[in-house]
């Protein structure tokens, strides 16, 4: 059997993650005052190319992948139940509620409800988010709030909202797509001005279009003051163009490195987008004709019309670009990498791209085609969880409560803890977003950090993220050790315990097999039991 590990080594997207306090910032302007910042700032490495579409070698189609990777002791480790798999992949973590819904209504119905979340009851979620006022503020309100120092820093509110939504929102697929496009059209909150603008970008650009059409999303992003500032298009003018945005627009946001453009196209596109800038007084988008290069040009074979509004020409080009097959393939490859496997099946990507092209770049049909493809079901247990995936899944399994805290000290502690794992929402400093393959995240130090963080959260060390193991422990009273272990494995890992789980828990808790632990013994051992299962090797995958 061929060793696919070998061939995978040359075909990866960017595999170099960074911590929040990115040493390795490719920042425009002064992204960081120091090369390494922050209290617990780990050294960060950033590098690697976005070569998502540059695959020369692909794994053979139809290559058999075991449904459930078996542990050496014979017990199935990651459950291959299709309902669980669907929920695990498309949400932030399996809960009993989701499983029950899928069981009752079927996978299709569950998926369709998730793809149109407008009818969902979000009152509990809204109550929490309502305590983070920055989320709803306009640019000028944010400016005022920040300068008067009221409330938690706006960036902190945005990041906390990420957690609240990941753990508590019923619209899970929507939130996952918001995260996907936040990475894809990355604007980091690495300075005050970008943080303010990113809150607006998150609300008006990403959240507005995450389950809509990609062409609408792209145009909105190109007009977004956050993006205009971050990638310097705001200061690009006919008197001196700046290529930064036009380059990333082609390389990262749409057609990809091998998508059929050259350096001349980068320059022409930059010319086309001159004058797309930020109004000095309102902080909102403004097209300044005086700064615009209205001359003839062509980009990748697209010719600028000789008549019509020069601003409209830019919008027209962006829609044309969004519908290019290379864009569909590039973005669908990334989607498949996010939700299915590090090396997506080319056949699946083709099916997704076809759905894109047939539906004016609408995202929901693309997701349906992905889930319907055989490669989706065959990928059980294949995705290594990124740090935030892993933490969110643990919190959902524990029924944790993420509080809309305004306490700066508590928020800073949470921030620093996440920074050691290398992933804080909205803090990847480069335009390409957090990487999405196992090789970027898995190493010995990373595991150690995850074990410790999940341990801290389960032990109640965070005031912001409240975990109550008491309720879980109470539910185990009266059970034998075996029953208790099975109940915990079912709740936390959605499967029966393996032999290895049983042995590990016996060691960690002191609950002797064949006996019934007393309530005190259960209480004494519950943290170790929960942590052992949530930090197990299998819990690193979904």
């Amino acid at each position: 059997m061929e060793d696919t590990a070998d061939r995978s080594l040359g075909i990866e997207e960017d595999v170099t993650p960074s911590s929040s306090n990115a040493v390795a910032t490719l920042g425009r302007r002064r992204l960081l005052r120091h090369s390494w910042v922050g209290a617990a700032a780990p050294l960060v490495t950033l590098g690697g190319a976005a070569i998502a579409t540059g695959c020369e070698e692909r794994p053979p189609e139809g290559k058999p992948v075991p449904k459930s990777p078996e542990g050496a002791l014979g017990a199935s480790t990651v459950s291959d139940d299709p309902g669980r798999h669907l929920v695990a992949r498309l949400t932030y973590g399996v809960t009993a509620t989701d499983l029950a819904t899928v069981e009752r209504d079927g996978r299709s119905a569950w998926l369709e409800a998730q793809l149109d979340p407008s009818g969902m009851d979000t009152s509990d979620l809204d109550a929490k988010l309502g305590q983070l006022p920055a989320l709803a503020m306009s640019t000028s309100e944010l400016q005022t709030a920040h300068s008067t120092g009221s409330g938690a820093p706006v960036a902190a509110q945005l990041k906390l909202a990420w957690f609240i939504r990941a753990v508590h929102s019923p619209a899970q697929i929507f939130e996952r797509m918001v995260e996907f496009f936040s990475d894809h059209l990355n604007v980091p909150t690495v300075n005050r001005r970008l943080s303010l603008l990113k809150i607006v970008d998150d609300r008006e650009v990403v959240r507005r279009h995450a389950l809509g059409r990609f062409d609408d999303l792209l145009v909105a992003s190109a007009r977004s003051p956050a993006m205009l500032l971050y990638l310097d298009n705001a200061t690009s003018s006919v008197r001196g163009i700046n290529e930064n945005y036009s380059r990333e627009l082609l390389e990262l946001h749409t057609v990809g490195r091998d998508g059929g453009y050259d350096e001349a196209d980068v320059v022409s596109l930059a010319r086309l987008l001159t004058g797309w800038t930020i109004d000095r007084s309102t902080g909102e988008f403004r097209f300044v004709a005086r700064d615009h290069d209205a001359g003839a040009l062509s980009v990748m074979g697209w010719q600028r019309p000789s008549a019509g509004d020069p601003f409209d020409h830019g919008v027209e080009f962006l829609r044309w670009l969004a519908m290019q097959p290379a864009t569909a393939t590039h973005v669908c490859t990334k989607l498949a990498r996010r939700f299915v496997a590090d090396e997506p099946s080319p056949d699946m990507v083709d099916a997704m791209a076809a759905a894109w092209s047939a539906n004016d770049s609408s995202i929901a049909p693309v997701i349906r085609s992905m889930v319907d493809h055989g490669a989706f079901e065959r990928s059980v247990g294949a995705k290594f969880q990124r740090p935030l995936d892993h933490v969110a899944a643990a919190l959902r399994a524990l029924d944790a409560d993420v509080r809309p805290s305004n306490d700066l000290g508590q928020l800073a502690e949470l921030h620093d803890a996440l920074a050691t794992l290398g992933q804080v929402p909205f803090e990847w400093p480069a335009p390409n977003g957090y990487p999405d393959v196992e090789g970027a995240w898995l190493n010995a130090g990373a595991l150690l950090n995850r074990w410790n963080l999940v341990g801290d959260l389960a032990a109640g060390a965070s005031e912001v993220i409240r975990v109550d193991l008491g309720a879980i422990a109470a539910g185990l009273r009266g059970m034998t050790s075996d029953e208790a272990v099975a109940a915990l494995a079912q709740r936390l890992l959605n499967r029966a315990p393996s032999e290895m789980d049983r042995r590990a828990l016996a060691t960690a808790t002191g609950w002797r097999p064949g006996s019934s632990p007393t309530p005190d013994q259960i209480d004494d051992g519950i943290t170790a039991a929960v942590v052992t299962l949530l930090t197990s090797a299998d819990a690193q995958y979904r």
Partner: protein
Amino acid sequence: MALRLNRRNLLKAGAVGGAAAALAGTLPSPAGAAGAAGAAGAPTLGRHNPPGRLVAVFLRGGQDHLSATVPYTDADYYDRRPRIAVPDGAVLDLDGRFGFHPAMTGLHSLYRDRRLSLAVATGNPAGDRSHFFAQDLVEHGDVRIPDDGLGWLGRHLGRTETDDASPFRGLTLGNHVTASLRGHPALGIAAIRSFGLGGASGATTGLGSTYRAGYGHDRPVDMFGRQALDAAEQIATLDAASDPDPLARGFADTAILLEADIGIEAVTVDMGGWDTHAQQGTHDRGEMADLLGTMDAALSDFQADLDRRGLVDVTTVVMTEFGRRVLENGAGGSDHGWGSAMLVMGGAATGGVHGEWRGLSDDATGERGDVPVTTDGRDVLGDLVVDVLGGDPSEVFPGHSWKRVGVTA
């Protein structure tokens, strides 16, 4: 007592199908190294004993070397950079052609003591202007992404792997292992003080044996889990740096780790912030001056620390993914270029300025408008592979024929 991780067995286990293949597509899995190097090459008997140890610093973002290593006698430099050029009266002279930016006093001292070598007009022949791609090319040591997908250090460590190798041969100071180490199961250590079981609550303190049993299979995740436990046990015995500035602490931890006898051969370190598209500032104020001052202090303090600890065998190399265009841009900054400069500090460094400088005329910079690459960066790294790592450049840089530059001996 050095910890042992039986690499040969792990490499073989990883290469077999089953669970490992199901979870394949990952790096740095032992399967990758086996597929690329271990299986093909003859197993090396006995431990690899390099002449020295290497610290490889990567300046992320494309450092504007024309502001760091200033060609101050070149009129074209001043013509093309009316706003951002470093005045010739401000530079710290090196060899009558180049001078350091005034913020680089520490490195200038080292140069005068013949402990710092420079190579000018270096880079990757491919000349790509994308950060991501250019960084990858430098880290893979190739002009395209190579089929084996290995980093240059990963390739070297894989070729010189032995059965009783230390788990610390290659490591990154940081949570995420750099691409240059790809192919080698390298450790990422963010800080000595926080490396180990326990966290803030101590919830994981007692779980060492549980983890050892639970991460007991042959998948990459299991191997890394056991490596984490081994490493934690050993690092728990070391002092930890406590400087509040993370940059200073990172280099201080590096020195502590190098002094401890744990088998380190190569450490990678990153420093970011170099993508100065706008408002670089003047020679005495602004972003570039700050960046260079920070870099200078970090590197020269690190060398002083190494000297105090008597670590004469440690050589540091500093590189970036590309330099920046000769012509300044409209925003008081500079855009992505091509040729850059590399520094080699301490240890085996010979001193002096190396490489061929063709000047900055229109002929020299050509259509690209960049400093042309006249010395392949892999030649500079090749000197280090031979003189510090005890390796073979022809194995480390596939398809490249190494020519000695002379930055080390």
